[in-house]
């Protein structure tokens, strides 16, 4: 394992410190809870939006804190949901008169930590709602499982609720919007390589030189199945087949198309996939009117990509159009 780090245990704290040092005017760092928060939070004229989830998915979510998006993010260690205390203390710190919305990618650990924190915060008199994101079509949803995972599609929920909160919407309205966007968002991912958590020091799974993992999760969880490496055209067909067929998206729909890099894939390849997917959707009568290409939700240095579709309407367009200022920026 070769990574830019000192000590695996200091990986997350040192990353968070870097974010704070790079954004001294807009962000505050609370080391006790791995918390990156807007320096002007809580603002009592808006609902506070909080994300947790594990680390290793950057820019999600610590780098998407800022005006128009999150008020705070309190991640756990690499691929581990935050300890319940982090969420509880963050909720107290960011408690606004208009309430707090906890955004949770749907995983067992996260779900429990956020639900426990919600219970405790409500007992403290804070108005709290929890919203689960579960856009991953790779995972079968059924009553006896933990349900679908939340993956890169969480960006759209975060952006939409962030815009609504910034515009002054009340907690019920913000929740309605979040649920609405989550309901029209679907994602599937594919890995070309595994990834190596710093503390483990070895890849989470072995993938042959000509193998790919289809339907991979963002924590190195193996996916639906292993397959032989294929052309970009075939890979896009596989991803679109799973995603389009799921909602389903149909001819006449207007959609946002996201090609999200999992960490180790260069943006050149992401744009290449984007172009192919855009045209294949057009051929099915589905029109892409919003494009998102880059890294939104990664798995450390895993090479791979996920494809997300969001069915658009005027309300969602308006929310995605709204300005936002986040730490993850390039120019």
């Amino acid at each position, binding site marked *: 394992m070769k990574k830019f780090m000192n000590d695996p245990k200091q990986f997350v704290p040192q990353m968070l410190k870097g974010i704070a040092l790079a954004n001294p005017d807009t962000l505050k760092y609370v080391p006790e809870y791995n918390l990156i928060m807007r320096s002007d939070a809580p603002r009592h004229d808006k609902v506070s939006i909080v994300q947790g989830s594990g680390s290793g998915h950057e820019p999600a979510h610590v780098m998407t804190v800022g005006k128009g998006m999150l008020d705070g993010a309190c991640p*756990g260690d690499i691929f581990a*949901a935050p300890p319940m*205390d982090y969420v509880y203390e963050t909720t107290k710190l960011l408690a606004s008169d208009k309430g707090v919305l906890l955004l949770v990618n749907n995983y*067992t650990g996260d779900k429990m930590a956020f639900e426990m924190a919600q219970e405790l915060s409500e007992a403290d008199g804070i108005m709290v709602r929890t919203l689960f994101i579960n856009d991953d079509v790779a995972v079968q949803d059924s009553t006896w499982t*933990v349900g679908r995972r939340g993956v890169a599609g969480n960006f759209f929920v975060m952006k939409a609720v962030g815009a609504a909160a910034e515009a002054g919407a009340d907690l019920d309205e913000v929740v309605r919007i979040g649920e609405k966007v989550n309901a029209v968002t679907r994602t599937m991912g594919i890995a070309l390589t595994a990834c190596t*958590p710093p503390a*483990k020091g070895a890849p989470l799974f072995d993938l042959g030189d000509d193998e790919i993992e289809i339907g991979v*999760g963002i924590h190195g*969880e193996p996916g639906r199945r292993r397959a032989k490496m294929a052309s970009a055209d075939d890979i896009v067909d596989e991803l679109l087949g799973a995603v389009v067929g799921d909602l389903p998206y149909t001819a006449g729909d207007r959609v946002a198309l996201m090609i999200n890099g999992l960490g180790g894939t260069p943006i050149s390849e992401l744009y290449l996939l984007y172009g192919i997917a855009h045209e294949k959707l057009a051929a099915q009568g589905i029109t892409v009117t919003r494009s998102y290409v880059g890294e939104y939700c990664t798995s450390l240095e895993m090479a791979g990509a996920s494809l997300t579709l969001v069915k658009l309407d005027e309300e969602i367009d308006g929310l995605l159009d709204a300005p936002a200022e986040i730490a993850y920026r390039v120019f």
Partner: protein
Amino acid sequence: MAVEQADVEFVVHVIAQTAVDNEKYFGDLDSVVGDGDFGYSLARGFEIVLADWDTLDRTDAGTFLQKIATIITSRIGGTSGPIWGTAFLRAGGVAKKSETLDGTVIVEILTAAIEGVKARGGAEVGEKTLLDAVVPMRDTIAILVAQGAGDQVVLDAAATTARTSAEATSVLQARRGRASYTGERSIGSPDAGAIAVAVIVEQIAEQWRQRATASA
């Protein structure tokens, strides 16, 4: 069989030390079909338990166990934080209400912990989680306690049952936790949490014996 508060502390210390010692092993188990952080998470929490050991509140066994729960809840992330935290919290609750710590109470404590874990995570036996090691172990203990067996006999049997049951999770398909996302591919390797329980109970039985020998 009946135990003292010092015995409870001894057992907790073994749990903590075993979790720290097996960080890598438990992590590797979790990376077969999970995400590999299980060993790291446990170790980060229990190393605080060890570091703070001398200053922990020892008013009574119940308070002690609940103090451990607090450390776990504030330090351990992932699924393990809430699961193990809840287990210690509920265990502490029963201990607090009990005058003595005899065999029946030990079984009650274990049962409360199990119910807490079930309520928190929604899992049942057979879904390939640590419950598949803990529940049969609790049943074995209950039977032996009812038969009036001595402490070492109870512990050895508990260790054997935990180990057998943990290994047996190999044939199960995961229905909870990250491993469940892999569907049928989760079959063929044991659950990380269940194996961890087996390793820990084996350590407890072994070190209980050594302690008895040393003080004899």
